[in-house]
């Protein structure tokens, strides 16, 4: 079951090696995204698309806000 992470915890997870994944559409990612994040839009989240992620490290997904 995925865990939720809030503002207070996200930076330490990233500092410890977690991968940031922006799941917004590519145009929104190109305009502005969290430093170091890669883009895998939800609509294209296939086995092939996630192959570039390291399965041995935590993954943090985000979109624009809580919605």
């Amino acid at each position, binding site marked *: 079951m995925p865990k939720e992470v809030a503002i207070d915890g996200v930076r330490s997870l990233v500092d410890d090696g977690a991968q940031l994944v922006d799941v917004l559409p590519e145009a929104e990612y190109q305009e502005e995204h969290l430093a170091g994040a890669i883009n895998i839009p939800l609509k294209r989240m296939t086995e092939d698309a996630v192959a570039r992620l390291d*399965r041995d490290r935590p993954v943090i997904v985000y979109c624009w806000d809580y919605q």
Partner: protein
Amino acid sequence: MSPRAAWRLERLGFREVYDFVPGKMAWLAMGWPREGTAARVPNAGEVARRGTPTCVLEDLVGDVRDTVLAVGRHVCIVVNDAGIVEGRLRGSALEETPEATAEEAMEIGPTTIRPSEPLEPLVERMQQRGVRTIVVSDLKGHLVGILYREDAERALEAAREHDGS
């Protein structure tokens, strides 16, 4: 969208997946690093001057004034024990009542903006209202710095020159 993406990644075999619920909006409002085409133009947090003197509510104004002047500034931000912006001391509030506490003399709840505030509309509003400085605080109310309109105007001009527009 991100909860569904988190579940999807688990379905695809990832064992440790987190959903950063507050999302991009919150990250940017904390003034944390960003990338992308929008980052070519600095935002308020990136232009704000750091190192603004701070004091706590119980400090005496006379002591605060000495500290502020010693570092060549004319304003002090009053923060509480949690580091949250409570008020501002400047001008006459900093000069006239040296025996008062910061809490007694401060301007309560000064207007603040988030670091993610885009500069162009902000500068327009500051020009229209004759505002020269504004306090920048993060999503949780911690001080980031003070934005000087002149710095923001210069940053916008530099960005325009860089874009050739």
